C-alpha cells in the first residue's frame, strides 16, 4: 500500500490533508504482522503465500512474528485439536489489541474433513476465539489467503477508531470490525 492509497483531500502543493481515522486505518492495514504458527497442512499454503512467488509482503502483511506479543493477526492455518485449543486461546490472549483472526481452511472454519468423525477436533476455531475472516478450502490456495488478507484489510479500513459510534461513510456503521471487542 503506497501513500497513494491514503484517502486525502486536495490541499496546497506538498500538503496532504486527511482525518486521523483514515490515516490510522491506512497505517494499520498496511502493516499487518501475522503470528508465525501453523497447525497442519494449511500452514504449508500459508508459508507458500509468504514466500517470493506469492509474496504476501506486497500487501503489507508479510512480517511474520515469532511472538504473539509482536503480532496483530493470527492466521489459524490448520486443524485445531482439543489438545491444542487451550494453547491457541492463550496465544490469542497474548496478542495485544487491536487483533484479528483469519480461520484458514475447512478445518479452522468448521472442523473440515474431521467434522463427523474427528473425536479430537474442535469443530471450528470460532468456538474458542472470535474470527474475522473465514477462508474455506482444503487447503485454500495462496491466492485465496491473499484474498482473505484483503478482505481483512477492507474490514480494517472501516475501524474508524476515533469516530466510532458516529455514522461512518458509505452507509457503513462506524466502528465496524470492532464488534468482537463488545
Amino acid at each position: 500500500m503506497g501513500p497513494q492509497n491514503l484517502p486525502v483531500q486536495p490541499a496546497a502543493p506538498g500538503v496532504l490533508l486527511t482525518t486521523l481515522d483514515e490515516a490510522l486505518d491506512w497505517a494499520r492495514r498496511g502493516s499487518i504482522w501475522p503470528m508465525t504458527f501453523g497447525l497442519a497442512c494449511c500452514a504449508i499454503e500459508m508459508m507458500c503465500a509468504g514466500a517470493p512467488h506469492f509474496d504476501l509482503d506486497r500487501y503489507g502483511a508479510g512480517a511474520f512474528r515469532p511472538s504473539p506479543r509482536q503480532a496483530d493477526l493470527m492466521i489459524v492455518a490448520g486443524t485445531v485439536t482439543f489438545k491444542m485449543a487451550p494453547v491457541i486461546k492463550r496465544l490469542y490472549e497474548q496478542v495485544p489489541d487491536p487483533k484479528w483472526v483469519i480461520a484458514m481452511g475447512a478445518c479452522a472454519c468448521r472442523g473440515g474433513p474431521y467434522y463427523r468423525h474427528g473425536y479430537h477436533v474442535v469443530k471450528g476455531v470460532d468456538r474458542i476465539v472470535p474470527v474475522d475472516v473465514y477462508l474455506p478450502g482444503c487447503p485454500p490456495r495462496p491466492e485465496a489467503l491473499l484474498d482473505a488478507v484483503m478482505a481483512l484489510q477492507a474490514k480494517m479500513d472501516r475501524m474508524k477508531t476515533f469516530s466510532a459510534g458516529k455514522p461512518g461513510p458509505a452507509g457503513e456503521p462506524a466502528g465496524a470490525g470492532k464488534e468482537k471487542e463488545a
Partner: protein
Amino acid sequence: MAMEFPVIAKLLEGRFPEAVKGAVTDKGDPWIEAAADSVPEVLEFLKEEEGLKFDLLLMVTGVDRPDAEGGGSIEVVYHLLSTTEGHELVLKAVLPRENPVCPSAVPIYPAALWHERETFDLLGVEFTGHPDLRRILCPEDWVGHPLRKDYEYPEEYGGISAK
C-alpha cells in the same frame, strides 16, 4: 543373507515351541503369533540371533477385534527389519479385549517407547515394565481409547462442545 518368511517361522517355532503359536501366510503380509508373556524373549532372540539380527523395530501398533472369539481381542503388532540381513518380520501378540496386558519391548528396543505409548493411548493396552506409560496424542485427562471400535465420542472437552 535375507531369510524367507517360512525359514524364520521354522526357526522361531523350533526355539519357542510353547510360545510361538504358528504362522499365518494366507492373508497379505505373513505374520507370526507369539504368546504375550513371551514377547520380550522372542524379540530378544530375533534381535540377537546370528542370521536373524532384526536390529530395527519399525513400529508397534494395535488392532481392536471386538468380534474375535472369546469375547474379542486386541492385537499388538510389531514390525521388525534387519538392516544388515535385509529381511522383515511381522510379529503379533493377541491379548484378551477385557484386560489387554503385554510386557513392554522398551528394554530390548528403546524405539518402542513412543509406539507403546500410542498403542496405550488409542487402544488401552497396558505395557508392563514400560518406563513412562502416559498418553501421547490425546490430552492426559482424555477419557477412553479412541481406536476401540466401541469408543463413544465425547460430548464436550474442556468446555468446548465436540459435536
